[in-house]
Every structure is written in structure tokens, then in C-alpha cells.
């Protein structure tokens, strides 16, 4: 009866060519729509109707390719000689025949946090990442906000993990040696009617267990943020909202995990599982197959595909692209808090809708947008998105689109229920899902990691005796960050290692020594973008115009390759494609 009503509704919304069936508690949508929009409408319609999850297999005629999209590894399609950076070559199988207690699929912030959490125990853990580095996708393509937990829908996993993650990040950042601060977040009331919503706001914050909130009068708002535009009527202030560098955080988690015994296997595309009965026995990868006791699915935008390998696809993901714009570092002088307006907040049903977010480096980041588009790794930006961002810039009198240094897009992996999937598989005995981790995934990551590690150990414990890793060192040896040192401290350091005195990136003030450190670190930076993610060289206002050749030289000398082999982002992305007549 329930299913019949759902079918009727679906056809009304998405056309006669769609159908639904129940499969082991989940609802599976099938058939065809003309538009992507109609496919989306069908997915949303089926959500939260008492099923365990929505699997939307409807093919939209305008983007049929999206239905069969498969992950591609960094080595996929890279011809010989196009590998660059002296990296691994395809065709090598170093993982063949090995065996691990746990395999974590995916080197985003969630996978890396889980791997680090698991490294507190004396078990063997491998983390598989298909790209040349961790944090290549969603984890380096977001606004770096550690949300307070106010925006999440009360009662959801999102709300619980967010609030707990927000608390965990502060001590964790200290251990990892990365910056974390709590500028707090302001939701601006632009009318008296908005201001009257305060009790509703407060009650929602209380329900979610958010750590504190305040009512700000218009005068207080003006005093705190003098450049807010227009006629404002005060604000709702959430002091616990924090910021972090998402890519530095992910790299730091991976490095800490590696230092504590986790094997980080980059350039490794998982391609499937081998199963016996209700257990996964082996993980198949393009670098060899290995045996495993428990698998953690932290595969980001591919998590539903990975679940499918275990015949456990009770959810499917849709992609919500978000574009962020970074403003010149001077913008940071004009705003202290994270800022957004309710009208913008509600512009989209399923997202906060973005705002103006200070970064730990002192820039203001604008965004993100939220657009439902096909493509799990399509990061092309569009003029329409920039226009969406310009509305936010208008919130602050001192900011303008001409301050833009760059902009970039990320893709949030969303379930149709719009909540996280964090649970052991019900189909196979040794798989744990950390899927559908959209916003506020970064904020939630440490809390998710705790729970997923617990679930993993529970499974592993049935066959293996687990003892704590007494050698676990929580504190990572943090890289030198010259900008933060006093002149005297810096002088001492430069006297010891003169490379710290040679500034390579002028905009972000990054020295040769820091870049060399990043290449020599346990999780070696091997491309321009990987260097950027660690030390920000090339991220400033000139965007690598001056420092690119210098960073290339350092990479070439550290990796022992020719200058022309240095890449921007791994195989297939060499900076130079040849030599000049004079040189050749």
C-alpha cells in the first residue's frame, strides 16, 4: 500500500517512466526521466518515507553517463613517461598477497581521521587513496568551517556528530599541530520579523546541544562587525563555530596515522571486493589484491559504488556542487566572525547556503554555493555560481568581487535523506560505512572517526585480540611555520638552516626550507598542488605567477627528476611539455 502510493507520487512528479521497488528495506527507484531535475525530484520524494534508504537508479536522459560513472585512479590513462614526479608506474603490484586487519577506502578527512583513530590499537591498517595525495577531492574543496551544529536538523546523525566533532577538533588540532580558532558565527537578522525568531533559533540550538548562543542587538552587531551593510536588526551569535584549514587538517591526520603505523597507499584505486559467504576476504586494487578482516567505506562521492561491491547498496548518493571564492588576504581586516543572513540561509532547502567565512590564513572565503548537478568529480565552475557568491559579498561593505584571488568547486556526497550513513553493513559481516558525509562533514569528522573505529574494532575483536598501541604518539611533529614565529625564533632557525631564510612564495611568505620539509615529510608532497596543500606556496594573490618555477626546482631536486617532469597534480599534469631549442 505504502509502495503503491509512493509509485503514484513518483509518476506524478517525475513522469510515467519511473518505478519503485523495495529491496531489503531500501526503496529502489528505476526508469528514466528527461531531466536531471526530475530525477532529483524523484529521489527527494522517496526519502524519509519509512525506508532504510533511497537508491535512485533513475537515468536522466540529459546526463545518462552519470548513471554508470566509475572512479578513476591517478594512474588511469597516464601513458608511460607521463607519470611525472618519479612516481609509481602503473603495472606495479606492491600490495599483491599482503594482508591487513583493516582497510580504509578513501583518503579524505573522514578516512584519514578513522585511520588515525585505528592507529591507537596494535592492528595493521592500510588506507587506500586513488589520487596522488590525500585531500584531493571534497576535503580540500570546502570552506574550512567547523560548524557549531545549529544548522543541522534536530534529531539527525548530522546534528549529533557535528556538535561532538566541534568539541573534539580543538584538542585534536593541538595534537596535530595545526591552527584552529573559534571566531564564532553570526546569523544576521535583516528585519524585525527575523529578530523575533530568536526563541525559535535558541530552541533549535538547545535541541542540538550546541555549545552556547547569544542574542546580539543591532548596536552590538555594529560594534562587533562595523562593515556589515544595510539596516540590520541584530544577530544570532554562535560562539563555538570554528575554522580550520581542511587540507592541512587532512594531511596532518594522515601523517599522524602514518607515523603511528598506518600504511597510506596513494595511487591505489580500489576496484572491488572478493567475498566468501557473508564476509569480504580480499580488497581488489589496481596495485594488487590483499586480504583483509574489516573494511571501512570512507569513499566520499563513491561510497555507494563501494557499498555495491559488497551487495550492500541500500543508499545512493547525489552530488551537490559548492563553489567557494577566496578573497585577497587584505579582506581579513574587515571581518572577524563567520557571517550569513537568514534569507540566504533559506535560499536552499538542504544547505546553510553559505556566507562569509574567515580562514585561518586571514583571507575571507565566500560561499559555498549549492547546486545539484551530475558528476561526482566535476569541478568546473560557472559564471552563474560567481553571481550567487556576489550576494554574500554584499553583506560586507568593505568586500568586493574584485578582491577575488581564485575560486574552486567541491562536490558534497549526499544521501537522499540528507543524513550521514554511519553504521556496520547488514549484508556483510565485516564492512563499516561512513557515507553520505556532506556538510558538516569536516566538523563531524573526529566524532565520526571515534564511532567508526569503535564499530570496526567490535567486528575485528570477534576474530582478533586487540591491544592498545602503547607506542601511539598523539602529537605530530608539526612542520615549521615561519610566519607564526617571532623575529628572534626565526633568526635562530635561519641561522641553523639557511633555507628557511630564502622566501620562495612571496604572497604567503613560504621559505625554501618549508617546501623541502613538505617533500621530505612522511606523506611526501610530490606535486605543486600537494605542496600548496601543505605550505600554501602558490596560494596567494599572484597565484603561483612568481614562485612556480622555484617550487618546480625544489620538487625536481628533492624527487630526483627533471624539471620538465614536475607535475601540478600528479600523472598527466606536467607543467612543461618539452624543452626549448636552445636547451634541447
Amino acid at each position, binding site marked *: 500500500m505504502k509502495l503503491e502510493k509512493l509509485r503514484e507520487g513518483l509518476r506524478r512528479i517525475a513522469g510515467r517512466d519511473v518505478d519503485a521497488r523495495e529491496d531489503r528495506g531500501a526503496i529502489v527507484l528505476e526508469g528514466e526521466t528527461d531531466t536531471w531535475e526530475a530525477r532529483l525530484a524523484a529521489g527527494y520524494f522517496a526519502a524519509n518515507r519509512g525506508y532504510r534508504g533511497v537508491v535512485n537508479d533513475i537515468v536522466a536522459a540529459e546526463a545518462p553517463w552519470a548513471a554508470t560513472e566509475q572512479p578513476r585512479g591517478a594512474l588511469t590513462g597516464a601513458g608511460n613517461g607521463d607519470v611525472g614526479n618519479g612516481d609509481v608506474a602503473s603495472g606495479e603490484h606492491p600490495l599483491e598477497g599482503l594482508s591487513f586487519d583493516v582497510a580504509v577506502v578513501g583518503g579524505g578527512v573522514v578516512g584519514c581521521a578513522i585511520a588515525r583513530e585505528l592507529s591507537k590499537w596494535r592492528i595493521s591498517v592500510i588506507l587506500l587513496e586513488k589520487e596522488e595525495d590525500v585531500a584531493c577531492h571534497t576535503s580540500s574543496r570546502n570552506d574550512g568551517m567547523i560548524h557549531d551544529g545549529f544548522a543541522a536538523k534536530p534529531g539527525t546523525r548530522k546534528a549529533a556528530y557535528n556538535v561532538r566533532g566541534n568539541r573534539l577538533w580543538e584538542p585534536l588540532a593541538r595534537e596535530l599541530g595545526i591552527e584552529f580558532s573559534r571566531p564564532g558565527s553570526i546569523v544576521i537578522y535583516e528585519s524585525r520579523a527575523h529578530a523575533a525568531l530568536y526563541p525559535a533559533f535558541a530552541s533549535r540550538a538547545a535541541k542540538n546541544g550546541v555549545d552556547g548562543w547569544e542574542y546580539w542587538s543591532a548596536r552590538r552587531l555594529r560594534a562587533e562587525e562595523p562593515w556589515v551593510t544595510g539596516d540590520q536588526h541584530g544577530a544570532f551569535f554562535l560562539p563555538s563555530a570554528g575554522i580550520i584549514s581542511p587540507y592541512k587538517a587532512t594531511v596532518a591526520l594522515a601523517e599522524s596515522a602514518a607515523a603511528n603505523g598506518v600504511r597510506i597507499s596513494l595511487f591505489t584505486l580500489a576496484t572491488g571486493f572478493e567475498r566468501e559467504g557473508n564476509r569480504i576476504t580480499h580488497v581488489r586494487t589496481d596495485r594488487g589484491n590483499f586480504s583483509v578482516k574489516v573494511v571501512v567505506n570512507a569513499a566520499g562521492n563513491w561510497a555507494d559504488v563501494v557499498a555495491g561491491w559488497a551487495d550492500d547498496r541500500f543508499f545512493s548518493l547525489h552530488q551537490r556542487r559548492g563553489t567557494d571564492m577566496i578573497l585577497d588576504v587584505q579582506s581579513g581586516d574587515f571581518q572577524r566572525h563567520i557571517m550569513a543572513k537568514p534569507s540566504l540561509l533559506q535560499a536552499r532547502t538542504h544547505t546553510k547556503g553559505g556566507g562569509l567565512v574567515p580562514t585561518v590564513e586571514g583571507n575571507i572565503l565566500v560561499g559555498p554555493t549549492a547546486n545539484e548537478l551530475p558528476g561526482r568529480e566535476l569541478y568546473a565552475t560557472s559564471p552563474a555560481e560567481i553571481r550567487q557568491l556576489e550576494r554574500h559579498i554584499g553583506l560586507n561593505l568593505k568586500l568586493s568581487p574584485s578582491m577575488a*584571488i581564485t575560486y574552486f568547486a567541491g562536490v558534497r556526497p549526499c544521501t537522499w535523506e540528507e543524513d550521514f550513513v554511519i553504521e556496520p553493513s547488514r549484508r556483510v559481516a565485516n564492512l563499516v560505512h561512513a557515507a553520505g558525509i556532506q556538510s558538516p562533514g569536516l566538523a563531524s569528522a573526529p566524532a565520526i572517526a571515534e564511532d567508526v573505529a569503535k564499530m570496526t574494532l567490535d567486528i575485528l575483536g570477534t576474530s582478533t585480540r586487540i591491544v592498545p598501541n602503547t607506542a601511539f604518539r598523539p602529537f605530530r611533529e608539526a612542520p615549521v611555520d615561519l610566519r607564526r614565529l617571532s623575529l628572534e625564533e626565526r633568526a635562530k632557525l635561519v641561522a641553523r638552516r639557511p633555507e628557511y631564510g630564502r622566501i620562495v612564495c612571496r604572497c604567503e611568505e613560504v621559505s625554501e626550507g618549508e617546501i623541502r620539509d613538505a617533500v621530505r615529510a612522511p606523506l611526501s608532497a610530490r606535486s605543486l598542488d600537494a605542496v600548496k596543500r601543505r605550505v600554501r606556496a602558490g596560494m596567494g594573490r599572484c597565484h603561483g605567477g612568481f614562485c612556480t618555477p622555484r617550487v618546480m626546482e625544489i620538487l625536481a631536486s628533492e624527487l630526483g627528476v627533471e624539471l620538465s617532469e614536475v607535475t601540478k597534480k600528479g600523472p598527466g599534469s606536467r607543467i612543461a611539455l618539452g624543452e626549448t631549442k636552445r636547451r634541447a
Partner: protein
Amino acid sequence: MVSRKDYDVLVVGGGPAGLSAALSAAENGARTGIIEREDRLGGILKQCVHDGFGLVRFGEQLAGPEYARRFADRVVEATSKGTVLATHLGAFVHAARRETCGDGGVRYVLECVSRDEGVFVAAARSLVLATGCRERTDRQVFIHGERPAGVFTAGLAQHLVNIEGLLPGHRAVILGSGDIGLIMARRLFLEGVEVEGVYEIKSEPSGLSRNVRQCLEDFGIPLNLSTTVTAVHGDRRVQGVTVASVDRRGTPIPGSERYVECDTLVLSVGLIPENELAVSLGLALDPATRGPRVDQEGRMAEAERADEGIFVCGNALHVNDLVDYVSESGEQAGRAAALFAAARREGVPIPERELIPVKAGSGFLYAVPQFIDRARGGKAVLYFRVNATRAEGGVVRVASGGATVLKKRYAVLRPPEMERLEIDVAAVPEGATQISLELADKGEGDGR
């Protein structure tokens, strides 16, 4: 551990502006220090191996490095001789601040770091900012798409080719017909790169006419006017770009998009004066030039206090098209900085300035300097750009308080070509509140 070097004049930047400024400061008796962030003097000229430099100044066509050497050699010679001029190479200015001297005057203190000298501070009564400019990037002109390898600013491509001996790609599209873009089109062509075309959003070229002729026409490289690149395709390496025609406001016309296959996109889409140091010292920027506001000696104009000795010259002040004028502005600033420092050192009061704003009227993009100090007397050099091409030429009148200070006739006026005027400051009437530049049609003027 942090050593300190004291000078009369500190010059930040060892490119053409800084070299001229330092030489001229030293010649005027100032102990002068140059802080240069690269390991060699010469600035961007080091990679400009094409010729055409020095026509105005030396009456001959020099390559960039040759032009730079004429100044750098003199600096090296002076530094080897004695203590008047010193260079700090590979030195980066981390921060700048003011310090009050014993006599109440201002001294500028730069916190610097270098590989060879470690962390040190350098201090002087006069500070010359010759920090040059940087290039605008793809995102700053709102080109969309992913972020693959193969997108270069023209200066970066030039560095890779001319300094590192590397080829950026095999098939290139060039966006922007600024001078560096035109020069890179030719350079890449000569290196065997297929240059598909140069695209310019405006309806006329942005670079010097001679460069359009010598770099494109001579090699048959197409110049596509009123056309721009709107998107880059490819995620690892550029696969192609979308180009589109634009309307009169520069907005892409729907339906005019065309895919161009290429592995390289070179951008010559404008230069931005680098003034982060100036801004950190509280100098406001002129929105038209994006450089500080100065008087005819390059001295910061907004100081209410007479004891501020910050001077700005070269491309940090406004983007020049000829290096000869960069050297000229460096010389003026260097001399003035030396005299200023000497006066402060000897306790001579700095004469009150009589700053009269220069207003570039309709038809102009801007004029530099933004102020003339009438109290200085003598000659003052004015540079200006018009905002649209006047193929039929025009007459520029410099007027003040109802009087005509100067009138000059031009056969042609184009935005890419900066023009230079010399006025007699004494001709500015007493009590004048403004010096204005007016543009009139040819017939209305009678020349000088």
C-alpha cells in the same frame, strides 16, 4: 642575533625602478641600501630577452637583460668601492614599521630575512618603494572550468621559456593582447609552438602598435578582437578552451561560443602594482592606478606630517609600458629621497609642501603624479593615459586657476601608450586649487 643595518635611504626592489633610485640616491650622497628578494638584480628585465628597451633613454634598442645591466653594473661597481651603496640580495621584507628617532623624526624599519644574512632589520629616514607589479590571473578575469596544468600568466610562461629552457606546451591560445602576451606569442612561435591565436576582449589591441606588428603580423598569428576565453577544459592538463565573441560591454554573446583545442593557455590580462608594503604603512591607493598617491618626486602625498619620507616609483606607482620612464621615475624618487634624508639628518626643517591635486578630466584613464608640490618649483613630469583611442589625435591642455600651463598636440593617442609631459611648476598660479588635464580635438589647440 637579529642584526641591524642603518641607511639614509632604503630602496625596496632591485628592478629598473629600484636600481635607478638607488644609484641616484647614492650619487646625491645618501648611504643607500637595496633590498632585493631575488638572487640577482634586474627584476623582470632578466627574463625579457627581446629587444626594444632603452630607445628613449639610450637611443638604442637593447634586450631587457642588457638594459638592466647598464644599471646593475654601476650598482655593483659602487658597492665594491665603498660604503655608500649596499645590496641585500635574496632578502625578503617580512614587515615594515615606523620608529621615532631621537630628534623626533620618523625612521622606517624593515624586518628582513635572507638565506645569506639570516634575519636582519634595515632602517632609514627615507624609504623608496620600487616593488614593481604582478600579473592578473585566470580567475581574476573570471575564466571558468577546472584547474588543470597548462594555464600560465605570460610572465610565468616567459620565465619558463627564457630562464628555465622549458616549453609550456605544443599548441597555445593567448588571451590578452598586452605587450607581454604579444611578445610571448612570437617567442612561443619561434620555439615551434603552434600559436592558435591571440584573443582580446577589447575592440582594439592592448599592447603597443609596434608589438602587434612585430610579434603577430610578421608571423601570421591571428589576432581575434572583441573575443575572449570563457572556459578552460581538462582536469589534469588543458585540453581546450571555449572562446566567445563579446558585446560592447565585454559580455560574452550567447551562441558565439567556439571550442578551440589547445594544451596551453597564456594570459596577458593586465598588471597590478604591488603595494602591500605601502598599504601596510598606511598609504592609500589611487583606484585608477592602484598605486599610492604621490607628488612629482614620488613622495607620498597624503602625509599631513611633513616628516614622512616614503617615495614610490616605477610600476609600483602605475604600470608603465616603457622601462625608460620607469628609470626616470626611479631617478626622481632616489634623488628626492637622498635630499630628504640629508635634511632630516642635519636637522634642517623639511619645507612645507604646497600640494595641488592633478585632475585628469574626461577622456583620461589617469594622470601621475596625483599632486604637484608647487613649492618645489622647477620642472615636473606628468604621465597620463587616455581612455579610448583617438586615431585623429588631440590636444592636451594642462590648466590651473584659469591659466594654461601647457598645451601639447598629439598625432594619435591610444590607451596602451602612456604619454609624458613636462610642465613648468612656476606656471601654476599662486593659490591654485587644482591642475587639470583637458583633452580637446586637434583643431582647438595650437601646439606648444
